[in-house]
């Protein structure tokens, strides 16, 4: 029997790696290929003026071929969630690649046409709901004024001040709900995301929490981390969210502005493609030593994390997962965080110290001071799933679907050797 072939639809994919969901899609794809021997193809998007609209081009980074479709820079409202030309391109691709399964991983902008194309070819479809695209036309439940909307459940009547055209919004929601009912399995990265979507009226046939994995520390990370902590014991705070209100940057700035000590460093990661996040920022008036760390790839992340003792994560919205927090926890790095949705669904320390979204800077300042004063600054690494575990979990979740289409035996997947697991106990927690 041949290994399954899965076509993953994800808004971006390597070499155009933007955002956490793309990293998850890439890493799981690689793990499915390497650990399980699956064939993986990808449909993702670019937006270019040197290609015809909706032209598809095949590129490849590593072992996963990526068929990029060229989305016009701006499209009518309906084409942002259901685009017949994307559906047609996806249908052609499905016919030529003949996958056994379509995984609509993060399909904002590609839209539900991918699902329709797969169903027309009689293929099983798995949807992974990322962010809040399925229940919020603005994707992140963030209002035009940049604040988290906070609805639970989402009631479209409350969206009235947030959207241009309520009838368009209602139509979108009806169509997405209907699409959701046509898929075989819907996964969510956290119980929070699942419950909120559920309460907001998304009622798929079958659903599961499929928690994201993270890149575990590589060989030598803990040795390098220990050396750095020994030779440069000054506490280092890290922040990865950029100069964004919603990620809590104004809160951080105000919290540090009022701090009356400076025996620490702050390292700001620049996640922008062009190094622009912190280009115009001025830190001279802030206490402590402030530096910007350039954008890093998955392979380079240990170089950032080995210099961090405490991650600042004062997110001002309910996120569905929080990759950064898990990356820190599995590296023995403390986290100061808000009670921001799925980001708290981990087994790390200090969960009793999370502070609420909207809290004043004093709350964060108190946590910073506590981190500087505590006698146990360096916790043990926390077991969190890596991408191998996540891929294993995916293979397990979709096995019944493949059994139907490919006649695969209904046995549990073989437990393969883990690639690298610092704690040796990175349990699947979903």
């Amino acid at each position, binding site marked *: 029997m041949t290994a399954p072939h899965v076509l993953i639809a994800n808004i971006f994919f390597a070499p155009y790696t933007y955002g956490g969901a793309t990293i998850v899609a890439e890493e799981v794809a690689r793990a499915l290929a390497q650990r399980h021997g699956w064939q993986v193809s990808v449909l993702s998007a670019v937006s270019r003026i040197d290609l015809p609209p909706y032209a598809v081009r095949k590129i490849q980074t590593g072992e996963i071929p990526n068929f990029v479709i060229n989305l016009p*820079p701006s499209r009518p409202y309906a084409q942002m969630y259901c685009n017949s030309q994307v559906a047609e391109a996806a249908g052609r691709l499905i016919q030529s690649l003949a996958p056994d399964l379509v995984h609509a991983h993060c399909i904002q902008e590609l839209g539900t046409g991918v699902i329709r194309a797969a169903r027309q070819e009689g293929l099983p479809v798995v949807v992974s709901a990322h962010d809040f695209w399925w229940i919020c036309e603005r994707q992140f439940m963030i209002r035009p004024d940049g604040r988290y909307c906070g609805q639970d459940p989402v009631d479209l009547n409350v969206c009235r001040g947030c959207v241009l055209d309520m009838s368009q919004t209602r139509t979108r929601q009806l169509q997405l709900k209907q699409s959701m009912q046509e898929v075989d399995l819907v996964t969510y990265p956290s119980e929070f995301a699942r419950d909120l979507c559920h309460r907001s009226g998304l009622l798929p046939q079958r659903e599961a929490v499929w928690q994201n994995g993270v890149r575990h520390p590589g060989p030598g990370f803990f040795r390098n981390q220990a050396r750095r902590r020994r030779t440069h014991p000054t506490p280092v705070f890290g922040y990865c969210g950029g100069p964004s209100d919603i990620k809590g940057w104004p809160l951080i700035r105000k919290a540090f502005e009022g701090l009356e000590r400076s025996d620490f460093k702050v390292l700001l990661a620049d996640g922008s493609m062009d190094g622009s996040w912190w280009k115009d920022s001025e830190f001279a008036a802030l206490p402590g030593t402030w530096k910007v760390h350039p954008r890093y790839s998955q392979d380079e992340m240990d170089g950032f994390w080995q210099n961090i003792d405490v991650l600042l994560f004062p997110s001002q919205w309910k996120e569905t997962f929080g990759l950064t927090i898990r990356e820190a926890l599995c590296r023995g790095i403390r986290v100061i965080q808000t009670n921001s949705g799925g980001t708290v669904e981990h087994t790390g320390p200090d969960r009793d110290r999370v502070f609420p979204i909207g809290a004043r800077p004093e709350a964060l300042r108190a946590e910073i001071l506590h981190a500087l004063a505590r006698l146990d600054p360096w916790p043990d690494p926390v077991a969190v799933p890596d991408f191998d575990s996540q891929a294993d979990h995916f293979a397990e979740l979709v096995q019944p679907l493949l059994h139907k289409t490919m006649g695969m035996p209904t046995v549990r997947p073989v437990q393969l050797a883990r690639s690298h697991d610092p704690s040796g106990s990175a349990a699947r927690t979903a």
Partner: protein
Amino acid sequence: MKNTLRRSLTWWRNTGLGRRGSIAPEVTGGVTDLTGFFRSDSSSFWTESASRTAFSIPTPPIRRQRPKIAMIGDLNLPQCRKYRVEQLAEVFAAADADYVFSHYEDLPRCMDILQDATHLLLYRLRSHPHVTRHLYEAHRLKLPILYDIDDPLFSVPAYATYGNMDVLPPELKAHFIDEAPHYAEVMNMADVVSVSTPVLRDHASEFTSRPVFLRRNFADRSTLEAQPRPDGPHGEGFRLCFASGSQGHEVDFAVIEKDVTEFLARKPDRKLVILGHFDTRRLPAEIRNQVETHAFTDYAGYLAHLSGCDAAIMPLADDLFNRCKSGVRVIDAASVGVPSLVGTVSDMQALVQDGRNGRVIDSAGDWGAALEDLASDRPLVREMGREARSGLETRWSARVEEPVIDPEMIRWIAA
């Protein structure tokens, strides 16, 4: 507060026209020819792909994928398009392969059809910057390449000795001879070659070390949809058809001109029906009033005229070029129930069983006697026409086996 207001205003302004901007972090790419290809511009798609180490595709398309053949060719010649491009869809359907095609100058479409293909098939192309692009892209995508050709366009000897050229302007012959190396060049950039006749296969093998497969022209669905006239040919007299799809066939007709002239002279109701290109001033004056001509027309019009004839004559002067020719005119005639009289030059003889569905007349044969035999036995003519038509359906329609196609070619595609 200032930032909040700025964000709100920007959002409302962007959405004011009922459109939404992409969430892509950047709209990129310089203005090019819309292929995103081969531009030195540092922002072009391929330049960017290369700089992101995503340009090269390390492995061929996955083997479990159903073959999908992308044909890029010169589609300007109607008969070539029918027999070497469009009818391939039926063969590949029988081989459980997908098939798409594009004219080689339609660069965006050519790029489109290559992306999810498993093979590139180049048809009748000479070296050209566009062809270089297609080859480059096919190599990038790790596609095996097949080159198809149905005339010895790559051969200086074939054109140097091609008798039909003698009645055309000499610069035309010189042009074809100059062009030959350019066809051979592209042919040799492919992994394998397919041609339309056994002689062409042998001749092509002198110009390439690549495997050369035989893929004959056949009666496709549209040809088989044509039907013989239920009431037979026009009138009482005997109507002979000579079809000429290109310039220079006066030289071929000259091979049997004397026999045809005598045949027509014996009865005034006998007609020579010439379809297509022909300089009738080259015909003997005594038969011109028994000649009916019809200008080159579309395929349906051509078959309509053909179906009004009793038999088709297809002489060819004996030269290397003509020996490479296929039996398409026999197929055309057979589709409308008209038997063909052919010589032993070209692959036409492969479609004709002498005395059963037509006549094969070798160099020592008597075309005049053969014509008289047919004219004197109309039931035999009609029976031969029925046999010719039946042979198309049973032996010369789309299939993945001989005589239409070398099964090795199908195996090469499926491998």
